[in-house]
Structures are given as C-alpha cells and as structure tokens.
C-alpha cells in the first residue's frame, strides 16, 4: 500500500502550476490552454531560458527535482498538462518510496 494521501490532486497541481508559470511568463500566458504547446503558443516568450526558469519554479513549488539527463525535459515541460502529469507522477513516486517530508 502506498501513502499517496499527501500527494496533491492533479487538479491542485494544475492550478498551482499555472500560477507559478504566470508569475514567470506574465499575462501573455493567461489565455494559453493547458494542452497547448507553450513554445508554439508563446514563441520567443517561452524560449529555452524561460523554460529553465519555469522548471526551477515548478521544482520549488512542489519540492521535486528534475533531472536534465534522465528526464526528457523538452517533452515534459512543453505544455502545462505534461508538467502536471510529470509532477504528479514524481510526487506519487516520492510518496511511495517514503521520501516525502
């Protein structure tokens, strides 16, 4: 049995992710759907450096670590939906392994 009770729901992760991304990207992000490819939707506003900032923000918000070697960051951080899936799975893994605080 895993102790997933402390893992936020995907809906909560979604809302918190959108909030932290909005602080990094700004109001241009407001109307971008969560399933949209951020680079296509935002163009240069979501360049690689902004992606790096957003990855750091998500890490900080949820207390997770993204491995730039093992994790396919270009895929998982290309849309809000994918970020939510990645974060939820990472939090579930952490909880299951008893590594969470």
């Amino acid at each position, binding site marked *: 049995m895993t102790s997933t009770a402390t893992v936020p729901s995907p809906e909560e992760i979604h809302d918190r992710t959108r909030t932290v991304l909005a*602080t990094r990207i*700004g*109001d241009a992000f407001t109307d971008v759907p969560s399933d949209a490819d951020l680079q296509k939707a935002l163009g240069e506003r979501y360049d*690689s*450096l902004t992606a*790096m900032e957003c990855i*750091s923000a998500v890490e900080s918000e949820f207390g997770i670590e993204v491995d*730039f070697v093992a994790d396919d960051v270009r895929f998982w951080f290309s849309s809000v939906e994918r970020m939510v899936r990645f974060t939820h799975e990472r939090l579930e893994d952490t909880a299951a392994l008893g590594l969470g605080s």
Partner: protein
Amino acid sequence: MPDIAFATSGSTGPPVTWLRTEDRLHAEVTLVHEAVLGSARFGRIVSYAPPGHLYGRLYGRELPRLADIPVTGLWDEPLTVPPLDDGVPTLLVCLPSTWQLLARHLPALARHGRVTALHSTGPATPAAHHVAGRLADTGFRAHELLGSTETGAVAHRPVAGEHTSGLPWHLLPDVEMLPGSVADGDGTARRLRVSSPRLARRAGTEAPPADWELPDLVAPVGPRAFHHLGRASRLVKVNGVRCDLARVEDLARARCPGLDLVCAPVSDPVRGEHYEVFYAGPGPVDPAALRRSLGRLPSGLPAPRAVHRVPHIPRSSTGKVLTAELTAARPAQEAEHV
C-alpha cells in the same frame, strides 16, 4: 583571405559591422589559451555560445580547429547537459545562462575533475559564483573574459566563489590600458580605454582604430589590472544582445505619448542582466497593450522582463531618476510581466 564580419546589433544606434582577419582571430584564441587557460590540453570543447558572435566563433570554432579538438555545439540546446561521464578534459564555453545548468550537476562536475569553464558576454551570475565556490577544491576551473566585438578580449580573471570578494581583472598580455574618460568627480572611475593589435576594423574604414574606449567603468589597480565598477552608458546585455535603455525609452515614449516612462536595469539570475519598464500616466493605460507594444521593439532589441505601473516616477531635485527607489518600490500587485 576576406575579413570575417561580426555585427553589433544596432540597438545602440545604426547596425555596425566590425571586420577581423583570420590571423587576428587565431592570435586571440592562442593568447587566451596560453595566458588564461594555461595551455591546457582539452580532449573536447562544448560550446553554448552561438558562433555568429565573436566569442562563440573564437572558442567554438577557431580554437577547436587550431588545436584539433572535437567540438560539440549546444548553443541551440541550452538545457542539454555536457558529457560528464568519461573524464575527458573538457572546455565549456559558457554564457550567463549556462551556469544554471551547471549548478544542477555539481557532483558530476566534481567527480569529473577536469572541466574548465570559460565565461563571457555578460556578468557572471549568482549561479556562476555558486558553482565556482562549491567546486573550488576540485579540478574544476572557471575564468571570465571581458571585452567587446570592437576589441576582442581585453582582460580576464577567475570566476570568484560566492564568498569571495570581487577579484581584479588583469589585462591580456598584448593589451595596454590608456587614460579613459573620467566618469566621476574625483577621477576614481574611468572609462576603460585600451590599445591592442587585435582591435577590429570598422566596415568602410581602412584600418582599425589606434585605441578604443569601452562603456565599462573601471578603477585601475596598477598599470595592468583594474576593478570593474559597472557600465558608463545605459547599456545592458540581454542574451548577449546590447540594449541601450535610453533608446528603448525613446521608442516606448513615442508609442505611448503622455506616459512618464523609464527603463531600469536589473540583475537576472539566468541571463545576467535584464531591464524592466516602469511607467506612470494621468489616465487609464492598458498595461497589456503597453506590454504588447514593447514586445515588438525594432532592431532586435529585447523586450523588457516586466512592465510595472507606479503612482509616479521618483526623481531627484535635478530630475535624475532615482532608480534604486524605483525598483525598491516595485508594485508586485500591478506587475505586468512580459
């Protein structure tokens, strides 16, 4: 053999092309290799600097060619970690943003033990100082270069650890420091003026200038070293692109008549430097429209990092904008990030 052209962006005025001979490019990489990198024998170069600019060309193309070193170009992939698992002596050609990546891989860098990082095109970021400090007792080495498209590299210093006070810059062996324009009342701060056999030739001229004054403010420490105090002009570099804040203000005011509007330079943890726009106006002004307008600046000028509406622009009795007061009073609730 035709000269090789490097263009400044034109963001500080009309675009300017500066020409360099291949011999001078080779002289520069040889000099930096010997004087800064200690003639280290690298088995690989990994470059995060685009080769269209002088710095990227020198260390991502000319040095690999001269020293017969395989090169991996990652300027289009700044999130890609350099190879760190085989112990091959490696030179990393870094931009300000590269240090965020390296800061995530301190154990691998420490284990590798034979990585040298070269940094240029902007101030070393907090992440750079963090990495240098954490890896101080390993084989990791890091050096900064100071220079410009017009001059090439003129000075160098180690990247200081986060708990190290600012180290002085030392001139490269073929560079001489000349008396620059005085920038303050007591003459402590001067513009950095140099002569060098590697100065570029401006397109349309017969020969390189005898000397060149950079926008950098310095305080000499003896004849061949100085402390860097900042920039004399309102110039910041965002992702390596020169951005004259006075010009941005002119463009923004032209687009938004009636607004009191200023640009303030800010440090940026990823890019080294950036700028933000603060504005005040008598009537309702749509911040989103202002942001969209500033997002389409000409000549490759980078858009501001953020736009802030403030009640008024603080100024001294002589009309000078009080930048520190302005940025300290940044109204988070009304920030319109770009």
